[in-house]
């Protein structure tokens, strides 16, 4: 095996941290936006949803290129020295996870908003109680939104390569390592890394689902 086991865990741990940070960052902005779009009592917001749903298909390489140009020493934020760092990767992946989280949250909340509002208001509840009930009733789609966001962040390779540079012990993550090992013809290592990636995604999603769907 070309990649020692210790290094595989090192890379997996780094992938988890970067994708986790990106998901957190994306959720910080994406969840409130999604809830707001989904829970608004009046109709409308259609164009916002169109933009959001379309953004779910944002090409990672284009997002990566954008951050490359932004963070390059020849770019507007060049002084930050952030290109080819994990921070740059987190930023790019957060942008990719954001529409997933906001979009799925908006869709899930919206599907329940009218019924919950009618029920809570009918029982004499306030608009604030409508929102808290709605949030609780929407916990399953919100978990799905977080899982989708995390999945898009951890499985992404184009933006990770462009903004991180696949530097060993620094910015090498599971996806970029798979590309490297495949390029080298080390298919066993590539497969191993790929399996770890699948396992990790499965594990995190399982944790999210168990945590989010508890009664």
């Amino acid at each position, binding site marked *: 095996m070309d990649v020692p086991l210790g290094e595989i865990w090192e890379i997996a741990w780094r992938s988890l941290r970067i994708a986790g940070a990106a998901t957190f960052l994306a959720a910080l902005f994406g969840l409130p936006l999604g809830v707001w779009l989904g829970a608004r009592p009046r109709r409308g917001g259609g164009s916002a949803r169109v933009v959001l749903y379309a953004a779910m298909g944002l090409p990672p390489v284009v997002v990566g290129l954008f951050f490359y140009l932004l963070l*390059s020493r020849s770019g507007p934020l060049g002084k930050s020295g952030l290109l080819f760092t994990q921070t740059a990767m987190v930023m790019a992946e957060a942008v990719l996870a954001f529409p997933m989280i906001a979009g799925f949250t908006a869709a899930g909340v919206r599907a329940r908003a009218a019924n919950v509002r009618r029920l809570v208001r009918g029982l004499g509840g306030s608009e604030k109680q409508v929102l808290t009930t709605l949030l609780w009733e929407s916990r399953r789609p919100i978990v799905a939104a977080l899982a989708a966001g995390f999945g898009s962040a951890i499985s992404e390779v184009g933006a990770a390569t462009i903004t991180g540079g696949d530097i060993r012990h*620094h910015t090498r993550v599971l996806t970029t390592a798979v590309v490297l090992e495949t*390029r*080298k*013809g080390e298919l066993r290592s590539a497969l191993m890394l790929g399996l770890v990636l699948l396992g990790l995604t499965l594990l995190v999603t399982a944790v999210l689902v168990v945590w989010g769907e508890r009664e």
Partner: protein
Amino acid sequence: MKKLLALFWLFALAFAAGSMRLATTTSVNDSGLLEAILPQFTVESGIEVEVIAVGTGQALAIAGRGDVDAVLVHAPDLEAKFLREGKGVDHACLAYNNFVIAGPAADPAGVAQAADALDAMRRIYRSGALFISRGDKSGTYHRERSLWRAAKLVPDGRPWYLESGSGMGSTLTLAAEKRAYTLTDLGTFLFMKDKIAIVDLYNRPEPLMLNQYSYMVVNPKRFQGLRSSAAYRLRSYLLRDDVQQAIDDYMKEKFGQSLFHALHGKCLMEVKP
């Protein structure tokens, strides 16, 4: 566990003393050469070298924007241009090997019988056998285009001329799968040859096929925040006799030949700014 701890300690040390970034070609990185010689540099200087492995064209582009501190590349005329534009300074020739035309063992174009490299290209052109070009701006692609030009042939648009757009290892794999010819550096070829069904059909150290690797420091005057003193220390280290010997010896036993021949700073192919 002990090994992991030692490794961790090494990182901590390197982090404390500083780091630098080197953009290099996939052929140097994927062959493991850098991983064989850089740890010693880190131990001696406390400087950790962060390696970004891309094609020569991309490496020079990244360096031209000030995003790395030094480059290790293999395209003399692109290097000359880089120096001429004032983007790089203190060019040093480190090592060389040769380019190889690899292809299917059946060799339908008869490349093995070619009189010289240009004749080999002509044979491929005439036979209509598949040829896979890197199609990127790598040093190998650059050489391939010079060979076609020198042979006065234009392969573009021919149905047998395919562009892979990917690294050397991937391109060799693609060529093996498609039973096609391709131009490769010797290092990557030796590393891949046991993993895929492809053989070296034209492997002669003649001037046209010479593959020279050089180091350049990104011009410290052009950008703020470059770690140029580290880049210069690495330059001196790479040119040191014992390190040059280590480059020469790298994988010599495994392959029965040097993967990279030391140049001790003396260029075989002129790099004139």
